[in-house]
């Protein structure tokens, strides 16, 4: 385990844990951004430069801002006075711990993780673009259609009903 990996993973885990435990929702989103930065750093550690920068652009630039807007539109800025967790939180906690335990056990006992790291691949943005335009052209078109449909649907759902305004 190298030092950059350790720092980035601690940043990610602490950010994620803070995002789901803090009371103030805006602080939660700031912690979430920290977790996304850590994940982008982990992608860079894994030699996936394009994906690291795409992560920063999409998650920190778009998704986090979208969540901030949703919080401000739903007046969630003030910290709630009542409990922030649902009454059945202990069962949910046990379920999550069990899930982590099973996954950690599977990872520790797997033979697939014993591979040594292959030499650093030469992956340029140009290659990714070629692959997207040749072999992955159909999925690219489908995801373009999906994004268009999702954004039109989001606007339609969130649009104020005319009867409500009157």
């Amino acid at each position, binding site marked *: *385990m190298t030092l950059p990996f350790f720092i980035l*993973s601690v940043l990610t*885990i602490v950010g*994620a*844990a803070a995002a*789901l435990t803090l009371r103030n*929702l805006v602080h*939660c989103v700031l912690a979430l951004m920290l*977790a*996304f930065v850590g*994940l982008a750093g*982990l992608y860079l*550690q*894994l030699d*996936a430069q*394009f*994906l690291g920068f795409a992560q920063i652009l*999409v*998650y920190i630039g778009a*998704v986090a801002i979208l*969540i901030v807007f*949703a919080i401000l*539109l*739903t007046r*969630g800025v003030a910290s*709630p006075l009542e409990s*922030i*967790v*649902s*009454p059945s*939180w202990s069962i*949910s*906690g046990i379920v*999550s*711990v069990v899930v*982590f335990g099973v*996954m*950690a056990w599977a*990872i520790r006992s797997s033979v*697939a*993780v014993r591979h040594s*790291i*292959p030499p650093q*691949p*030469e*992956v340029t943005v140009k*290659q*990714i673009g070629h*692959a997207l335009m040749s072999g*992955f052209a159909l*999925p690219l078109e489908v*995801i373009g259609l*999906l*994004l268009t449909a*999702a954004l039109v*649907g*989001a*606007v339609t*759902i*969130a649009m104020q009903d005319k009867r409500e305004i009157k």
Partner: protein
Amino acid sequence: MTSLACYLLVSALLFSIGLAGALTRRNAILVLVGIELMLNAANLNFIAFWRYGPNPEALTGIMFAIFAIGIAAAEAAVGLALIISIYRHYKTTNLDQIKSMRG
């Protein structure tokens, strides 16, 4: 060099934190945040397996992660629009108080 198991353990921990958050928090927006964290944990797994796999030149792992990021963005947009629409109806985002689909 960091081993594959370290990345997978970080990813598993991130997934469990996201799952715990999505199951326990009362605010609908934070449930969505938990789901985003779980999707990100899956992405980290894709990239780690791609990097440690036998032929990283195939680019399949990167492509899968790119499409997963796109789908997560679409999901966040629709989910937040739904939360805003529900808030307009019930004047709350507390999931315990939203009891019926048709008020």
